[in-house]
């Protein structure tokens, strides 16, 4: 059975001690929290997500431009296959159930710095309880909210370690699923971040990854 710790969706503005984004930027703040089985926080980090990759811009382009099934636009999926994509059905779906590793927040062990052409996480950590594996929880959301300068919403996922040993997470990604009707369902990576030095998830503990997508005026 999956060791799943659900985070209740909520609408709140979290102000970083040092603002990561300046006026005019849209980006994400990445918050990592490790908790032991009693819920005590054993590690906590916060950083600016650096890396919307090209698929984010391409899917935004398709949707804003309304590229239809007549014209289509090639977008590379996580299997390194170009998909002739359009706006006809879903395009940015991050929702994912527990166990799903093709959608939502994804964790890995790769350390290569991100580039704009990245289309897949470098070395994915599989779902499971085997050595080097983590149990992927359900993806949850915090509703959009704003204050005088910042609009944001949250995407959260828990990763429980029941592998019997430490697992070090070095990279994170966000996969979205789209359905172009003609091409069926495919997953695309829109964000990839590498964590300097990695974050260790000891066995019996849970990593919570929280992406806060923000727009700052």
């Amino acid at each position, binding site marked *: 059975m999956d060791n799943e710790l659900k985070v209740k969706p909520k609408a709140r503005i979290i102000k970083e001690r040092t603002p990561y*984004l300046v*006026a*005019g*930027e*849209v*980006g994400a703040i990445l918050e990592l929290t490790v908790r032991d089985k009693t819920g005590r926080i054993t590690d906590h980090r916060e950083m600016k997500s*650096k*890396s*919307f*990759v*090209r698929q*984010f*811009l*391409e899917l*935004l*382009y398709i*949707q*804003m*431009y*309304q590229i*239809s099934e007549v014209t289509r*636009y090639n977008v590379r999926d996580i299997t390194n296959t170009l998909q002739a994509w359009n*706006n*006809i*059905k*879903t*395009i*940015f*779906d*991050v*929702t994912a159930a527990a166990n799903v590793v093709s959608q939502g927040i994804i964790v890995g062990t790769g350390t290569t710095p*991100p*580039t*704009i*052409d990245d289309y897949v996480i470098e070395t994915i950590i599989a779902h499971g309880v085997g050595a080097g594996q983590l149990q992927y929880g359900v993806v949850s*959301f915090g*509703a*959009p*909210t*704003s*204050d*005088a*300068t*910042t*609009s*944001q*919403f949250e*995407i959260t996922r828990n990763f429980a370690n029941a592998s019997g040993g430490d697992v070090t997470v070095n990279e994170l990604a966000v996969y*979205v699923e789209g*359905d172009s*009707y003609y091409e069926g369902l495919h997953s695309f990576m829109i964000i990839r971040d590498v964590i300097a030095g990695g974050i260790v998830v000891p066995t019996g503990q849970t990593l919570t990854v929280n992406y806060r*997508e*923000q*727009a700052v*005026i």
Partner: protein
Amino acid sequence: MLTLKLAVKRFDKQGKLVEKRRQQGRSFTLNFIGLLYLFHYFIITFTMKTVEGVDRDTGLQYSFRRSCGSLKVSSPAGLGGAQVGSEGNTTLWGEGQKVGIQIGTGVTAPIPLDYAMATRIAHGKAAGQMEYGGTDFSDLTISDPNGSFIISRYFTNKSGNTITVREVGIYAHGVQGVEAEVESFCIARDVLDTPVPVADNEILKISYQPQITV
């Protein structure tokens, strides 16, 4: 990181460029974040404020192909019909001037809760109005570490008098999930660093360039 660059060009009636300015676009609104949230979360309804100031449930419904219209920014000129999506044999339409790049005369500083231009300049030839062209898109270009595309629109002053443009913005269509109705939402709004007077018969071009940098 996603940023927005804003360019303003003014042409005389012969089409000669007479003024060119650039500034950083600063003002993606809560509605932009809200539409992204809708796409990510894929929920049926979520309440957002339309450009008319009305709270409406907008949302996506997987089985009805309605998602295709939301976040639409491209548009035909003026009163032309903008196809937003379809529901079976029914095509959903919006008004061309109510989507895409917008101009206005307001000077109120932007805030995340802005849901419309402060004082929008309407499409037309009457006093205080300008003719809205279509909202066009350039090709998308990627060159590590940057990627961008350009959204642009022409506005022609046939009102007989000079009109001073002080604010610009972007309206996007959203599809109301339950009744499949089309609404417009303001996703970005900027006050120009320097107002631009557009004389009668002159043409104004506004360009926004969304750019990501890794």
